[in-house]
């Protein structure tokens, strides 16, 4: 088997697997969005810190409860009202307070140590991605190259494994919060401010992220996926994303494109290689290759996409995308066309 063929075979399996994972992720299997299921160095150090904190706090709780129930249940003695008893109690309360301070010092040190590793990317060759939040979707733009080669990938962040990825985050409207629990903690996206965070995935996989700051009607449906893949696959992906949209291959696709370009779709969406060039909504140049539609809300199947295009308000009430009044045949053609944008 030639290297190329093996690669294609692997890729096919990987795509199948990732689709499988995606349908789980979209909406996710248990623990997929769990902070205690870390898949990268940042999340891992927070996870260990979390276990440490919970263990210490658990022990403290048990000790206090033991003292509490002992205080309630103990046999009362005539000597309880004696000054010596008060002195002994004072000693014990003082001791307990000192121990409390010591425990808190330990917790603080553990926290600071874990925090130090989180502030800046570790390791060379960091990739930079610009994250822009909108009500209620995410835009990821790869800006490491000359501007003509910029690639945007709405609601789906592809990253190479084993490399820190620096995220330059901002918001177009209200405050959102970028959060992929398997990889790192949150970073708020505040209009008027640009800040940086980073993440790194240790192994290939599809991780779910979700907006964590209340941002209005569809805060609940503002998710995205992070696809972590080996560097060469990532390079292939990004090279593919740089291509303009594929030309329609069939009559129905051609009809679909015509309908698309003549309908309201173009007032918000871009399909590179066509006249559709608006940046109000997510870019659709390669929408057919994405795992989800409607910001991580639905798996990207023909059925779900159809429902979404026909009436987004039924799926995400309050969403900025208006319902569509296309004739059934036109809708099917548009669907076929959009699905072909791989």
């Amino acid at each position: 088997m030639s290297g190329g063929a093996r690669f294609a075979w692997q890729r096919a399996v990987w795509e199948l697997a990732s689709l499988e994972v995606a349908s789980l992720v979209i909406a996710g299997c248990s623990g997929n969005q769990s902070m205690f299921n870390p898949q990268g160095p940042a999340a891992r150090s927070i996870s260990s810190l979390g276990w440490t904190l919970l263990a210490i706090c658990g022990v403290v709780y048990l000790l206090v409860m033991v003292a509490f129930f002992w205080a309630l249940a103990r046999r009362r003695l005539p000597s309880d009202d004696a000054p010596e008893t008060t002195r002994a109690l004072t000693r014990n309360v003082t001791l307990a307070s000192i121990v409390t301070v010591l425990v808190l010092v330990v917790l603080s040190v553990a926290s600071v140590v874990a925090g130090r590793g989180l502030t800046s990317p570790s390791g060379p060759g960091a990739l930079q991605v610009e994250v822009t939040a909108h009500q209620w979707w995410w835009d990821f733009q790869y800006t490491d190259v000359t501007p003509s080669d910029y690639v945007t990938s709405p609601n789906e962040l592809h990253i190479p494994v084993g490399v820190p990825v620096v995220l330059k985050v901002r918001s177009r409207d209200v405050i959102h919060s970028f959060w992929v629990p398997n990889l790192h903690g949150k970073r708020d996206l505040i209009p008027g401010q640009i800040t940086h965070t980073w993440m790194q995935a240790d192994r290939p996989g599809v991780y779910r992220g979700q907006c964590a700051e209340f941002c209005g009607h569809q805060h609940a449906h503002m998710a995205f996926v992070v696809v972590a893949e080996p560097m060469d696959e990532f390079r292939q992906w990004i090279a593919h994303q740089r291509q303009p949209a594929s030309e329609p291959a069939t009559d129905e696709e051609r009809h679909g494109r015509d309908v698309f370009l003549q309908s309201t779709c173009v007032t918000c969406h871009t399909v590179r290689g066509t006249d559709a060039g608006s940046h109000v909504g997510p870019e659709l140049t390669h929408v057919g290759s994405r795992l989800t539609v409607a910001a991580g809300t639905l798996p990207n199947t023909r059925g779900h996409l159809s429902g979404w295009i026909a009436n987004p308000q039924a799926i995400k009430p309050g969403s900025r995308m208006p319902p569509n009044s296309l004739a059934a045949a036109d809708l099917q053609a548009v669907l076929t066309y959009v699905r072909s944008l791989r």
Partner: protein
Amino acid sequence: MPTEGPRARPVERLERPLDENAETRLHRELERTWYVPRGVVGWLSVVDHRTVGKRYIATAFGFFIFAGILAALMRIQLAVPDNHFLGPDLYNQIFTTHGTMMMFLFAVPVMEALGVYLVPLMVGARNIAFPRLNAYSYYLFLFGGLMLTTTMLVNSAPDAGWFSYVPLAGPDYTPGKRSDFWAQMITFTEVSALAVAVELVATIFKCRAPGMTLNRLPLFVWSMLVTSFMVIFSMPAVVTSSTFLLLDRLVGTHFYNPAEGGDALLWQHLFWFFGHPEVYIIFVPALGIISSIITTFTQRPVFGYTALAMSVVTTGFLGFAVWVHHMFATGLPQLGLSYFTAASIVISIPTGVQIFCWIASLWRGRPRYPAPMLFVLGFFAIFIVGGLSGVTLASIPFDLQVHDTYYVVAHFHYVLIGGAVFPLIGGIYYWFPKMTGRMTDDALGKLNFWVLFVGFNLTFFPMHILGFQGMPRRIYTYPSEMGWGTLNLLASGGAVLLVVGGVLFVYNVVRSYVAGEVAADNPWNADTLEWGTASPPPVYNFLHIPIVEGRNALWDRSVDAPVVTGIRSDCREVLITEVLDAAPSNKTEFPGPSIWPFLASVVTTAFFIGSIFTPWALPVSVIPIAVTLIGWFWPKSPEKDAPGARKSTELREARA
């Protein structure tokens, strides 16, 4: 002062007859002087702290029930994944109103209301300082609360969260009037909260019975003092921020508009500078309730009085140093954030000290376990969980994961329900005999406790785990594949028990009010002054203002304890004492009932609500507000001081 061992002894009424006839005459005259007016106008003119306090408490519980129903609706919506019971618009209104109402219209007012009722009694005063301001504050609170309730009922409630972050709550992203109602609700409740805080500080500092030096102040009074100062220093920040918001929305200023040089983060600093002290404003009074109940039901002075009082004061100060721990994810500089981690960890030290002191009190005392005590013991089991989860939240890395997840929801419900609502309900059971003259049903109270305790933990404990599993707050639904369904269903099941517990509480209180066993003056053999007068207390509180001889005023009272004489009984004359040692310094006259505070509150309400719609509300309402204030402060007619009225005599101590 007789120094006795740390042991309670049975106490009787403070009013021992000096001379039977003289006593009766005095009683009649005081009753005439401190009358509570009748009729509709009279009902609205009441300035008596007990009546206003009870109305305050009942109203706050009314809002508690309303906000509780909203919580139940949320639990129905979240019980199963992909639920369509509530849409996003209604859900967002409901969670916003739930939070807003619980914080601004229940938790803070009910604690202040308890202070309004109890503090004057505990310090041996005849009424609260500035009694008309007190009435005014109640009506403003009531009207502000009714305004928010109405917006919820007509589907126009605020929907940007109880924290109303801009720009979401700003003019561009919340058109309509929803956020304006929120901002003005803040104005209503803050003005009333500030008024009560000022009254309480004045009462505590200047109206204490002689002998009640600061180091004999009951711990409940200490906690109300600290709370009042926290209100005074924190509330201006939120009034400022909500006024800026209103200006942005109404007249197009750009305080929070980054496109015009405003700053979205400014809101968060101002809001949390108030918002974190706010939770201590709710929690600190509960500390006082706990100390009171533990003292009474262990029949011993509480262990570590000084440590407890100083811990409360320390908490009050540190409460202002931790606000940025709500903003760890905003990208502020690391060094600055670390300071707030340290402060947030340090604030758990005074709380720890208090818990150790109470455990020592329980260890040393002779605990009895009626319903109020059970609620306080439940506090230990619940609150300590919340306190410890609070310590974990102070850690920046950990917070970055659990911030804005259900872990935080679990945390603050453990702190606020465990730390404040359980002691509060215990406090209501404890002081009910004093307030109404009737006992509650203790067996029912105990059942009430267990139902609430189990229901609470079933509802909120699973939320810790949901937070770890990545469930964010404030989402109106979630996909079934996330695996959050089971724990959410469990939480909703627990909420059913909480509703049952709430109904039991209301039933017990209402039935006891109507047909409860008649209460003795001091049914629990408690130590603080309010138990030294009748149940319910007479309109003038104390026939003779007592002279306090120890920390546990009733337990430490000598057999032939002196009382204050020489205070006029034909007008509302009260004794003013020194701040530190409560030595008598002078006398003053408190104002009587008046309809003007009510009228002033009506025109103030018209102004506040009007200014939601037009800036002209300000200039237009200046005149009616001025008129009502002139009526309010109109000097008393001179004939009341005419010759024939008994002249005040020099203060003296009469020994029986």
